[in-house]
């Protein structure tokens, strides 16, 4: 286990280093990414400027959930980059080479690349979150802050799991991968708002099938007392994200087994 972690960081370090070699380009990319993701919050601000409230939530409260979502998504996006381009590995037969190494395939694919410029989105989300916290008077060293932290971990796990699932589909088909963007980028887009504003079937899908509500909406709603549920629940529901990640890894292993049985 410890050896795997060591290998993971060594492999990631290579990707890290080669990006740092082009430092100017990296900063420019990260800054451009920061600005382009800013458009999202500007769009939301415009609507709140006019309407003031959405189903009982104010703008600072939205800022909380928005910030968390973007921070979590950015980290998942940055570290799951190896899965994003995975279908190329299968198409070219490169995946066979991964199977010829005496370590797990998940480890190898996940450590292929880290896309650092995604930090642009992360910083944008962080700024919005900090603003929201200050407006709402949420202290840095408080139980509330703990909920936020655990939720972000849950959000990272959830989206990382979705990227793994997206890559696993490549074992069956290389055609319809863009459909997964509906749940990854679509999940981000819809999760920026509290899920209770959507139609019940939509909310149900994102609670029970893809536990987005468990990692983002419920913890924040409990923290803000928007939902009348016990406080400890807010600390616990993000675990659904980690469970989802575990399931995604199992699906991956199943996909690898199938690949080994049918060949490429």
């Amino acid at each position, binding site marked *: 286990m410890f050896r795997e972690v060591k290998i993971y960081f060594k492999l990631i370090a*290579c990707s890290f280093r080669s990006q740092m070699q082009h430092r100017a380009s990296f900063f420019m990319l990260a800054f451009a990414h920061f600005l382009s993701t800013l458009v999202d919050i500007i769009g939301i601000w415009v609507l709140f400027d006019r309407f003031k409230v959405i189903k009982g939530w104010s703008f600072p409260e939205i800022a909380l959930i928005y910030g968390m979502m973007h921070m979590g998504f950015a980290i998942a996006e940055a570290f799951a980059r190896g899965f994003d381009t995975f279908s190329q590995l299968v198409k070219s*037969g*490169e995946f066979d080479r991964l*199977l*010829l*190494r005496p370590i797990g395939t998940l480890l190898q694919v996940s450590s292929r690349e880290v896309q650092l410029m995604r930090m642009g989105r992360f910083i944008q989300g962080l700024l919005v979150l900090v603003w929201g916290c200050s407006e709402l008077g949420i202290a840095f060293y408080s139980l509330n802050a703990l909920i936020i932290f655990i939720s972000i971990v849950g959000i990272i796990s959830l989206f990382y799991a979705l990227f793994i699932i997206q890559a696993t589909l490549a074992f069956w088909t290389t055609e319809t991968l863009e459909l997964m963007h509906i749940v990854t980028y679509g999940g981000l887009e819809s999760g920026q708002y509290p899920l209770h504003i959507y139609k019940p079937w939509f909310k149900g899908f994102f609670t029970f099938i893809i536990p987005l509500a468990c990692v983002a909406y419920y913890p924040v709603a409990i923290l803000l007392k928007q939902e009348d549920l016990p406080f400890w629940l807010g600390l616990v529901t993000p675990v659904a994200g980690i469970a989802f990640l575990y399931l995604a890894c199992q699906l991956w292993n199943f996909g690898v087994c199938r690949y080994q049985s049918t060949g490429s």
Partner: protein
Amino acid sequence: MAIISVDSLWKEFSVPKRRKGFFGGIASLFSREYLTKIALDHVSFQINEGELVGYIGPNGAGKSTTVKILSGILVPNGGQVKVMGRTPWEHRIETVKEIGVIFGQRTQLWWDLPAIESFELLKEIYHISDSVYKRSLESLVEALELSRLLEIPVRQLSLGQRMRCDIAASLLHEPKILFLDEPTIGLDAVSKIAVRDFIRKLNKERKVTIMLTTHDMDDIESLCSRVLILNEGKIFLDGSLSTLRKKMAPERRLIVDLIHDQEWISDPQATVIKQDGQRIWLSFDPSLISTQAMITRVTSKYSIRDLYVENPPVEEIIARFYQDVNL
């Protein structure tokens, strides 16, 4: 005890039938028709430790499939396989730790990194101890003359240089078995000889069992004492190289570029196989007339611009073999 034992191995692939057109594409999303292709048809053989075996056959014969199954990354439909006492696909990680695989056309090195960094990553991945790594690296660098290449990013190396680094990479963990798939393809003559010499030494001195898949008959002739010929998923010959030579009628090809058009070459001991403008393909039996004598005869009788000597391609040997079997 055989280090590799294969018994009645069979593997088939289901290839989806492609449907034409836009609506065919939509239809295939809902239902698929499949064609079954038999890649390996009850193949059996044994390889002992320290052997250097050639595994040849035309494209699509099933060679890569065999190597993938033996290395544990592909699961067959039936049959028994034991590599170093284990069933490879059931113990992928243990099997893979003790074998090395080289694909001639694809590198296992990290493209953007210098070769030495790839080696160091592999040291971690294969869990090679410091002392073994040091010893292994030193002898490989010396044997393959890599000292000047180590710091250069792999993408900047020539094909021959990259091949040598790939060979080193696959031997760092001192595997007992080495699978080589087209190791000399695309290399210049000097590199080919260097690679062959290295492989020969590796087998003789280190007793590494080597299974060599290739289309290059020169590779086979210079390295292998034993060959397995595979065709359409079945083993056609499993024997020594001298058996193979005896079984096939010895033949050399002489390709002649004439200066004048429309000339015809006739010779009592040569047959014209093909003529294309000024180029004529001749076939002769080197056991009846030496190559040197043949060349002398042809060049003295005709005005020649250029001339090549060739072995007949593997496919033709096998096709002829197939014909012989059917007689």
